[in-house]
């Protein structure tokens, strides 16, 4: 793996997104995701985290505003295989007849010819990615047979196989046990040290300061953004989560952690 890869920033300028049912999900959002760092995206359910992700990835057409990846429009950045996306679990059809290996190989399609016939490099990278997330033994399993944590790791392996320099992960810790969460965090730290730009949305407020260099607080618009130490304050959190006392919030998230599926 190359050690000195170029690092890429994401800039979001005055972004607004309205869904077709006239629902305004994001409003005048401005932020810069610093290159080569891990940025946490925090906000309550329905605050527009996934909407921001989808706008950055170009899945949604914003009604206003502009997004640049290292100065490039999103589509150009995607053609260059710069951007990988790990979807929220409820966006995936887990009953689809594909294996873990098939899914990870889909990360390589952008490098293949029209018929998408994998070469030896593609196969090697898929195996290396599976190895890195510890999913080699599960590669022939249909994706629905996996536990919550394994599902996340399979899609993370796809992002690794794609070799994207920018990786967006939408709630990678939801439905994941503590051990797997730790493992994913370690991998994200490694990837950051290799120069990747990482944006991750999470509800686990307790772990953010352990691995996120920067934090963005979101509720319909961006309420605060900056270094985690500076942004992750009680007042900011209280503002983001709308008046709920932060301590009870923490409690709430820890309770939902306990419900996470056994692996």
């Amino acid at each position, binding site marked *: 793996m190359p050690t000195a890869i170029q690092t890429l920033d994401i800039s979001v300028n005055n972004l607004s997104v309205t869904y077709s049912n006239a629902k305004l999900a994001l409003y005048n959002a401005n932020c810069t995701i610093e290159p080569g760092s891990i940025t946490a995206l925090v906000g309550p359910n329905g605050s527009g985290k996934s909407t921001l992700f989808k706008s950055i*990835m170009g*899945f949604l057409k914003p009604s206003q505003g502009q997004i640049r990846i290292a100065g490039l429009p999103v589509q150009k950045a995607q053609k260059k295989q710069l951007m990988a*996306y790990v*979807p929220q679990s409820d966006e995936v059809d887990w009953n689809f007849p594909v294996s873990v290996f098939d899914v990870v190989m*889909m990360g390589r399609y952008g490098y293949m010819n*029209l018929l998408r016939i994998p070469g030896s490099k593609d196969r090697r990278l898929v195996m290396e990615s599976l190895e890195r997330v510890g999913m080699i033994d599960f590669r022939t399993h249909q994706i629905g047979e996996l536990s919550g944590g394994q599902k996340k790791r399979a899609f993370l392996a796809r992002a690794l196989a794609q070799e994207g320099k920018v990786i967006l992960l939408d709630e990678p810790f939801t439905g994941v046990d503590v051990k797997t969460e730790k493992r994913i965090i370690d991998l994200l730290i490694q990837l950051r040290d290799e120069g990747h730009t990482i944006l991750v949305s999470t509800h686990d407020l307790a772990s953010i300061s352990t691995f996120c260099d920067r934090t963005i607080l979101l509720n319909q618009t961006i309420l605060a953004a900056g270094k985690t130490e500076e942004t992750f304050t009680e007042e900011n959190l209280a503002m983001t989560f709308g008046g709920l006392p932060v301590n009870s919030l923490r409690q709430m998230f820890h309770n939902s952690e306990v419900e996470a599926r056994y692996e």
Partner: protein
Amino acid sequence: MSNLIAKIPLVDWLIEPFQYGFLVQAIWVSAFVGLVCAVLSCYITLKGWSLMGDAVSHAVVPGVVVAYALNIPFAIGAFVFGFGATVAIGYIKSKTRLKEDAVIGVVFTGFFAFGLVLITKIPSNIDLFHILFGNVLGISQQDIIQTLIAGTITLLVILIRRKDLLLFCFDPNHAKAIGLNTQFMYYTLLSVLALTIVTALQTAGIILVIAMLVTPGSTAYLLTDRFDHMLGISIATSVFSCVGGTYLSYHFDVSTGGAIVVLLTVLFMVAMVFAPKYGILAQNSHQQLVPVENQAEANKIVD
């Protein structure tokens, strides 16, 4: 020896139809149609486009009539209107706040009704009954050629684009994220859908063609977790039903399309009940396992 076989009435009864060229030909045509539908069926069921398939099949009717009036091949007219309906659906959905199923319902019934009006107004010898229910036993050479061309194009397009189409069905967002043109994939899948319906028009008729597009894929989906196996099972059940249905329809003098779809449906029901992992029986026995285990646990505690 051959004398002996001929004397056995059952064998006689079984092989008698094969003396007729038209029947053998109809069996070949419907087997081919079964193959094409089975392949596309896997993609359509996984994508959740059954309703779209139903829409396209009804929307081709005005195309058939117009093609007849202009004296061009029916396949061209049918394709243009079938594909046109899907474009209209996409356009209306993007411009209004209506849900997709409502848009599909409005558009396809509109096209179909327009076709009915045309059929009754434009003087032609198109038999409405044949359009609605198919007529593979009486298919003309010209129609066979059109069926073969439409089906072959469909198979070639799917063969070349199969990985991208599967990715598009599974995870269109990822397809976009790696820079693929999902708009193009969307229209590719829609056009092969329209072409497949053109292919199956003469065999099943527009009312039943949707069964040929949905049932084989659904049956296969209940039986396996691997796409390549799904494709194989879908093709096997579909070709079997098409051949068997055509043959039986001659023997019992019943509707060919009807016989094919009845066979398809019977196979589906067998899979639904007996499928090893996803069948109703298997699912029930999974559910029963849980209380049994609990009982064992409970007994232990009592002990």
